[in-house]
């Protein structure tokens, strides 16, 4: 459960996020969609306090995020960024074990969990001892997801997680992600500028523009009941495709 209430962020003179409010229910996936500079990534990073809001309040599981030290908060929140976020000097196993180690898990428990994630994400067993540079882009992205999920976070934040992949790999990984139970049951906020990705992965989509959350709702609501002309025009080009998609996923 995440509640974002009247949150704003000012960078010098520039208002990056203006009075944004939304909630994400247990197990729900909300996708923040918008063009570059619309404030979606800033909003995401305020949830795990990589950026501190100028005004407003954020609660995770009913508790204000500022009540705890930032690193404690972050260890309970999975964080996925583009594949470039893997630590190049760590093997795949070490990368996945990052948060469990920070939490002081027993080595056996870490090993079991790592193997479980490997199987779930269809990564070859021998990749554990490899370094990220020895993997393909798609594999790296799966390792990134495994690392975020390793310590069973109740919340997952994903920042353009597939941004660095080619369209075909992207589509394939998207399909896999959708089938993952673990991912489906985790409360997730994802940021993307890719409309198709938003429609495929989001239970609800929040469309942002110039720091404001223009409309938040199910894909169907955004397509068929846009609150203004901006929302309507945003989906115009891909309307046919999206309508087909949103019907299929019902």
């Amino acid at each position, binding site marked *: 459960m995440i509640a974002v209430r009247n949150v704003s962020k000012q960078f010098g003179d520039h208002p990056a996020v203006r009075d944004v409010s939304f909630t994400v229910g247990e197990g729900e996936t909300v996708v923040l969609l918008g063009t570059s500079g619309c404030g979606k990534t800033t909003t995401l990073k305020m949830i*795990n306090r*990589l950026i501190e809001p100028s005004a407003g309040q954020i609660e995770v599981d009913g508790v204000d995020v500022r009540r705890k030290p*930032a*690193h*404690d*908060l*972050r*260890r*309970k*929140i999975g*964080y996925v*960024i*583009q594949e*470039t*976020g*893997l*630590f*190049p*000097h760590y*093997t795949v196993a070490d990368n996945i074990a*990052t*948060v469990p180690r*920070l939490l002081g898990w027993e080595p056996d428990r870490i090993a079991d969990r790592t193997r479980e994630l490997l199987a779930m994400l269809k990564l070859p067993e021998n990749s554990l001892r490899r*370094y990220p540079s020895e993997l393909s882009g798609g594999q790296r992205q799966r390792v990134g997801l495994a*690392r975020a999920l390793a310590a069973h976070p109740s919340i997952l*934040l994903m920042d353009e997680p597939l941004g660095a992949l080619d369209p075909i790999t992207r589509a394939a990984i998207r399909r896999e992600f959708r089938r993952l139970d673990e991912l489906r049951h985790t409360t997730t906020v994802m940021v993307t500028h890719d409309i198709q990705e938003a429609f495929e992965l989001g239970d609800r989509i929040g469309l942002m523009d110039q720091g404001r959350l223009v409309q938040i709702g199910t894909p169907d609501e955004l397509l068929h009941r846009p609150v203004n002309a901006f929302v309507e025009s945003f989906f115009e080009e891909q309307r046919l495709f999206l309508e087909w998609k949103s019907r299929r996923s019902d």
Partner: protein
Amino acid sequence: METTDFFRFLAEQSSQLVTQTLTHVGLTFLSLVLALLIGLPVGMAISRQKRVAALVLGLAGVLQTIPSIALLGFLIPFLGIGVVPALLALFLYALLPIVRNTYVGLSEVSPTLKEAAFGMGMTSRQVLMRLEIPLALPVIFAGIRTATVINVGVATLAAYVAGGGLGEFIFGGIALNNTAMILAGAIPAALLAVGLDGLLARLQRLRGMRLRRASILFLALAPVLSAFYWLPRNDQTRLVAGFAHEFYGRADGYPQLRKTYGLRLTTRLIDQNLMYEAVRHRQVDVISGYSTDGRIQAFGLQVLADDKRAFPPYQAAFVVRQAFLDRHPEVAPLLNRLRGLLTDSVMTALNYRADYHHETPETVAREFLRKTGLDRPRKAGPRTGTLTVGSKIFTEQYILVEIIRRLVEGHTTLEVAAKTGLGGTQICFNALRTGAIDLYPEYTGTGLLVILQPGPAVSDSLRADPAATYRYVSDQFLRQYGLVWLPPLGFNNAYALMMRREQARPLKINTISDLQRYLEK
């Protein structure tokens, strides 16, 4: 030089070579450890405070551009001699590469990665230890490598200030013009630099976990290698000697003392001119000076009598061309009037006035002659001939030339032309032989060992007897070269051991035998 000379030298001096190499390694790594202790945290700190970074790096860069010998010279007035200024200079040289590379390495870690690490829930410290330092390690290592190689080179200069190391052979060899000795220091120093560079280059190419393990090993090993500095010190005697490289190596210097007196002193090698300062400031107790040096008086030093006559006599006397004496028979009796007036203490006092009160040699000479009643104003009338006098490049000889000038021009109608500053014994001697000069002041020991160079049998038999040495030298010069040694002036500018008077007195050390007995007690 033949290669066999080199290997013979190595074989003879192998224990010394090992000692010097270990000291050298010790100095290099001790200063490196200090530079790491300061440089790594400073590099880390300025990578977080970019504004300070330019200032700190600029400052370290300036230090780096100061020539090493100048830096040492700058430190000596504050820190004296010995290991401290050497270490400080080495430390300062090692600092820049370490600070700079730590800074650059840490700054180059991608911000995305740092954000990912924070996003995982790492604390600042954990991000530094687990992400930034491991990723910066190859760059930091490159800096350590540069610093190490620089220090192996600069550490040779430690021998200049009695810090030890392979520079002892290098400087000693230069002072003695002994190529084998120079190479015995230079080759190991070069091998050390090349070897360490290669080793660190290999470490630097390692990746990931291996590099981290290698770095930890290196960091653990560096203090151990530093300890080499203390390891080889031969057993410390009750007094410590500071000897000039030349004295330490020359057969008629320290080796002769060991042979004659069985003297064993913990020895530090040091530049000849710093030696007096070192004993004055109690950094060493015994030095090897020259018996008429002005500083003996200035610094309150006491010359230890050479009671077993280990040092060859170096009686001063004028050497003159026979042809000149034939043309001007009045000159020899005139110069002989100086006999007995220039004793060791008088000559020392004259040197002292020129060196420490900066009086000109002319003034010193005039006042000396006035006191002895030999001074006359320049004789009037036309000059009837010229006496060309040569001298080597040091104060004592300049003063002697001025004494001759004033004496001869006051008592005769001869003109005196001075050719001062002839670079050394060989040059003066050749000038005299070819007639470029008519006369110069020389010392019997030098005439014997540098010019005549008889076998060890002859020089050993003469060692104990100044009169016999004088006779031998004057006979041989006359017979072989047609050059005349006038009678000895009365002072002896020989090697001499000296101590601070305030230390020698209470210990009742007046002679080298006394010193030897004291050390054995």
